[in-house]
């Protein structure tokens, strides 16, 4: 593995740590009644969004999933506006009209989380197609879940990108479960990267909890996409740190797996890289502290924020 600067490794860790604690605070806010609706935490999977997004350019595109907070944050979303959206406030990314499953920032190329499993994939292919028509060398990463890899939208999108040789990176976040259904029950081939091969797409399976492995794989594919060699597929194997949804304790998750991934945690792995590169424990704590402060400010901002008034809302929807 290449040697990376402490700065770079710190930035990766910071992003992961931010996602982890965003989710923890979000769950607290949920339990306090500040957040309603669906809330699918990304914790345990932080290395994937972080590794992939840090390999891309700011004017590239991503599409995300129903478990989308991590992708947004890794893409650089503002904590204040993220929390505000989750709380349905006007200062949120979607003015409180979208919520957790629809956070997006179109102005920055984040084409959004999606409440329909798999439906982000064709949208990503379209972003790539548009860029290619305009002659721009943009790359698009589309995140999809293991469960989502069984649905037609994803599969058709994969084939379309392959047929048209578009600069799309398909990132399957294989956390091995779809709610309570283990992957073995939902497909005849649990090595999901193989379905990429079936469509002629160069595909690999990697450890999705190792942020550098994700980064390096993504970086190589992003560079090759930019040269017109896409699409590519990455199956990143990972595991949820808890149930499917904030209200699901995940009791069906096998104990051995939970324990294994407790140790094989993306943050632990990320911290180890930092330590190996020479970062001291105090420096790490400092870095963590900074994130926690930002989060505290953002939670405060969101809780105090205004909601859209009925008048503003009715004004907004005029013309439908």
């Amino acid at each position, binding site marked *: 593995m290449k040697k990376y600067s402490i700065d770079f490794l710190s930035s990766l860790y910071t992003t992961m740590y931010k996602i982890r604690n965003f989710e923890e605070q979000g769950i607290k806010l949920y339990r306090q009644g500040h957040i309603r609706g669906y809330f699918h935490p990304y914790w345990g999977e932080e290395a994937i969004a972080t590794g992939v997004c840090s390999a891309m350019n700011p004017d590239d595109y991503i599409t995300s999933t129903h478990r989308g907070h991590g992708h947004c944050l890794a893409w650089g979303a503002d904590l204040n506006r993220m929390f505000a959206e989750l709380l*349905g406030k006007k200062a949120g990314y979607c003015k*409180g*009209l*979208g919520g957790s*499953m629809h956070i997006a920032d179109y102005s920055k190329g984040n084409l959004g989380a999606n409440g329909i499993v798999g439906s982000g994939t064709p949208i990503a292919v379209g972003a790539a197609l548009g860029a290619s028509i305009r002659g721009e060398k943009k790359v698009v990463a589309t995140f999809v879940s293991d469960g989502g890899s069984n649905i*037609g939208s994803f599969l058709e999108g994969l084939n379309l990108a392959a047929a048209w040789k578009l600069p799309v990176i398909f990132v399957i976040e294989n956390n091995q479960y779809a709610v309570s259904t283990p992957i073995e029950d939902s497909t005849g081939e649990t090595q999901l990267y193989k379905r990429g091969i079936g469509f002629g797409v160069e595909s690999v399976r990697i450890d999705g909890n190792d942020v550098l492995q994700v980064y390096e794989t993504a970086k190589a594919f992003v560079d090759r996409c930019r040269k017109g060699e896409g699409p590519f597929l990455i199956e990143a194997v990972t595991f949820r740190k808890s149930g499917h949804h904030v209200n699901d304790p995940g009791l069906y998750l096998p104990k051995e797996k939970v324990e294994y991934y407790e140790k094989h945690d993306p943050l632990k792995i990320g911290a180890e890289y930092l330590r190996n590169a020479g970062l001291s424990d105090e420096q790490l704590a400092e870095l963590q502290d900074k994130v926690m402060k930002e989060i505290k400010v953002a939670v405060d901002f969101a809780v105090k924020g205004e909601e859209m008034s009925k008048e503003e809302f009715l004004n907004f929807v005029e013309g439908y």
Partner: protein
Amino acid sequence: MNESNTAVATREIMYREALNEALKEEMRRNPNVFVMGEGIAERGGSYKVTVDLLEEFGHKRVIDTPISENGFTGTGVGAALTGMRPVVEILFIDFSLLVLDQIINQAAKFKFMSGGTARVPMVLRTQGGVGNGLAAQHSQSLEMLFYHIPGLRVVMPSDAYDAKGLLKSAIRCDDPVIFLEHKLLYMNKTDVPEEEYTIPLGQAKVKKEGKDLTIIAWSGMVPKALEAAHILASQGIDAEVVDPRTLVPLDKETILNSVRKTEHVLIVQEAVRRGGVASDISSIIQEQAFDYLDAPVKILGGLNIPCPFNLNLEELIIPQVDDIVKAAKEVVYKG
């Protein structure tokens, strides 16, 4: 047992429990009935409608599916075509937009296209409606998309009693039935007979009698219409509440009889106002009872917009009890 028989032992159970009983009874009655959907086996379904089925009927007949709505709905169609009676669950009616080819181009058409030799005795269960901040992709009311399609039956029960009796009939029906539940009704309780019963498809029910105006409502709007009728009564307006229960076939007679009696009609619909089923019912009343109408048929529907995430705004977009009261008064005072 039939509906008019009232001297039967009952107990209060939830809508979801009633559905669960219907499934169990029909699965016991006919080995060709089976259920499939996401997380319906061990987990018992997102709204707990299928709890305990796995234990009694095993994995062969209680099938967890991958996230492939179009594929597994088509699987249901194929099983039905070959003699089975599948009950396919789609988690949210919003996701049924993924399966309309199998429902509309396939299931609804086979009997006709085959000259009557094929039947598709399948039930598609799903749930819709606004509630709990689930936002634009998990809050739609899309009954119109099925109502408009020849070859489908459409059922929308509003309480536990209807839910059980209608689901049993739906499973016994030889044609595809779209069985639409409402996410806010699952925990509502009603008296339900101990004894087995069925409710024929195509029979409306007058949920409250009245003489001043007819309020037509279905699914999640029925409890609200009843509450509004209660308030109206205290203000001297005697509203009749008619619940079609089955949208296809529609019990026009019960509706028209009520209209001929009250001469005033309000139709309350959770789905967006533009192009909803209410419009069709209005057009029927208007064509068939024009001379009885003392005032135009009024439709109170959802706003023509998607559902917002924010809970306070969510409330705004569909008819609430107060809106129904207000609309009812407008109809009565106009006439």
